[in-house]
């Protein structure tokens, strides 16, 4: 036996002599195993089916006790071939495909794609203003819904299921508004190249105002659960640290980048859809940790409510009868109008009367646009929007035909998920959950 606090290799392997007050030395000696210390490491698979990995993400962890020494994410479990599918559909039908990529923020996918198509067509200035305001309105509503789900699942994964229920309760209000305006709760093919598919129904502005009146108090309730909760702070402060240099190297955008102190938001820096005319702030924190990202998301919900209020004011001021929501160019704008008829929702009788008996040209346009689609001049374009997770870009290549030649989406979750190794290696296993939740990946966007 050696002196207290030492170790020796005896017949049964390493023997550690503990003398009291020397735990650090024992741990240090244990770490310096002679044979590379890999045998002590446990390989754990947080498989694709897991309650806390935000979808079908597989994390392979190499654990040394509670410390993660190596982390490898495996993706591809939700690969759908959306980009290739879009090559066999017309440009307008592509909207229904791309909307299902990042399924928590479908309107952002649609808008990025439509901005790219409009850039290729060269009609960005001719998109009606009412359509742009509606796009901004729906996008900000979507940002609120997405952040609520992110915060809700964040709480649920840490074990706080009440946060999940609160978040979902507020999200239902937003989904009600989506259903009222676009017809669907999710995966609405609402934003189309040239504008949006339909105008606000009557009563929508009142419902929006009610929503704006109710939300601040509900958000306060949600914040009360988390903001200064000592358990929550202990689990998210100083956890999942990634500084600015790391973000730049790994191409990270969105709340993670803003949590390092850099106020980079495409809505302010490279505005689209008229964002430069709205009054809002960019939420930033300096702490580079998961708690900072949570606070940024809550702040962004407040800012989105501000923008929605401005949108509602603008929409009330305009007169729907004279303000179209789809581009006037009959060779591009989606022709069908929907209206509520005696047997439900369908093509409006006025539109049918117009194309069948009044205008042959309109009939031809309707037929050609629906079967063949419009032709987009050859070229390639990159259009980006600021989605709740970061920069969502669409690289669209056209060969002059009615179908996309190639559409590639630069999804923010795909890039942001690369940083999970940098955030978690050296930390504890429980922090892996926090890190993944603070990145808020949506696997549909990651795998496409």
């Amino acid at each position: 036996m050696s002196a207290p606090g030492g170790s020796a290799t005896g017949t049964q392997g390493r023997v550690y002599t503990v003398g009291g007050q020397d735990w650090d030395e024992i741990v240090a000696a244990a770490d310096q195993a002679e044979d590379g210390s890999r045998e002590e490491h446990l390989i754990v698979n947080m498989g694709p089916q897991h309650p806390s990995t935000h979808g079908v993400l597989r994390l392979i962890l190499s654990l040394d006790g509670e410390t993660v020494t190596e982390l490898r994410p495996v993706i591809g479990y939700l690969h759908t071939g959306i980009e290739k599918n879009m090559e066999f559909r017309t440009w307008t039908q592509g909207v229904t495909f791309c909307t299902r990529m990042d399924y928590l923020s479908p309107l952002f996918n649609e808008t990025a794609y439509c901005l790219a198509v409009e850039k290729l067509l060269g009609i960005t200035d001719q998109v009606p203003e009412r359509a742009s305001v509606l796009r901004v309105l729906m996008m900000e509503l979507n940002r609120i819904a997405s952040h609520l789900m992110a915060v809700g699942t964040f709480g649920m994964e840490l074990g706080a299921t009440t946060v999940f229920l609160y978040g979902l309760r507020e999200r239902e209000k937003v989904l009600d508004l989506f259903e009222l305006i676009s017809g669907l709760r999710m995966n609405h093919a609402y934003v189309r190249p040239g504008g949006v598919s339909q105008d606000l129904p009557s009563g929508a502005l009142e419902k929006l105002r009610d929503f704006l009146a109710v939300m601040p108090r509900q958000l306060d309730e949600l914040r009360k659960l988390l903001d200064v909760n000592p358990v929550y702070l202990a689990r998210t402060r100083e956890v999942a640290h990634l500084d600015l240099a790391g973000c730049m190297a790994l191409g990270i955008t969105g709340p993670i980048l803003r949590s390092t102190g850099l106020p980079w938001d495409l809505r302010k820096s490279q505005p689209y859809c008229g964002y430069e005319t709205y009054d809002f702030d960019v939420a930033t924190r300096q702490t580079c940790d998961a708690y900072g990202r949570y606070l940024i998301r809550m702040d962004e919900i407040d800012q989105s409510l501000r923008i929605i209020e401005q949108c509602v004011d603008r929409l009330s001021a305009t007169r729907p009868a004279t303000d179209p929501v789809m581009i006037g160019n009959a060779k591009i704008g989606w022709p069908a109008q929907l209206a509520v008829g005696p047997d439900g929702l369908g093509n409006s009788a006025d539109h049918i009367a117009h194309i069948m008996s009044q205008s042959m040209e309109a009939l031809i346009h309707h037929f050609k646009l629906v079967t063949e689609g419009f032709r987009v001049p050859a070229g390639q374009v990159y259009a980006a929007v600021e989605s709740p997770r970061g920069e969502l870009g669409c690289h669209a290549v056209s060969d002059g035909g009615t179908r996309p030649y190639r559409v590639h989406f630069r999804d923010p979750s795909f890039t942001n998920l690369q940083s999970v190794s940098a955030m978690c290696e050296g930390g504890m296993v429980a922090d892996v959950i926090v890190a993944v939740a603070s990145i808020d990946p949506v696997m549909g966007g990651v795998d496409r």
Partner: protein
Amino acid sequence: MTGPQDEDKAALAGRERLTEPVVRTGMFGTHTTGDTSGYGGLKVRQQPPVPSERPYGSYFDEVADALGGALESSGTSFGEAVERVVVAADELTFHVRREHLVQVCGKLRDEPALAFELCLGVSGVHYPSDAGSELHAAYHLLSITHNRRLRVEVSAPDADPHIPSVVEVYPTCDWHERETWDFFGIVFDGHPALTRIEMPDDWKGHPQRKDYPLGGIPVEYRGATVPPPDERRSYA
């Protein structure tokens, strides 16, 4: 007034156009003798790659000059590294030769006048009709300092689908290059671990190439079948 030189130019342009490969034939998706429209014999040829001429406009000239200066200071000329500069739809694209890709990206990131810190990933495109450079990889770069965007495009032939990897310059391209390898078969030389990322590890083929079928099965519904999307009659 058109003179003899103009006629030569027009004829020359016409002859040049006729040397381009055919990308689409026919109209209305017809391939059989039942086509009476007269458009069945239509041949749409590929547009030749035409470089843009100076001045490019907006900040593009500044970027091109800064890059030229930076490359010159390391002994490469601008024309040697950059094959073609294209300005279209308010976007600047440098078509770079693949041997100089890593050097160009390094300059773009490090030069203070350029400062393209953020790379937004690699996007692969397969042009089977572009003989000799079928596989393209487009890198979208963003400069936060100057609030500018840029696209760098590299091409490689099908016979030799190798492009140097830019992971040392932009580590974010790690997964993006893996994805482009997975879907197009472009081998990125120097990538630390070029493996499949989206498809299962033992998948054969590169799905997003144009010669890979969409897959899919005919859909049966009440006595009829509808063929999968890539085998249907097309009206385009």
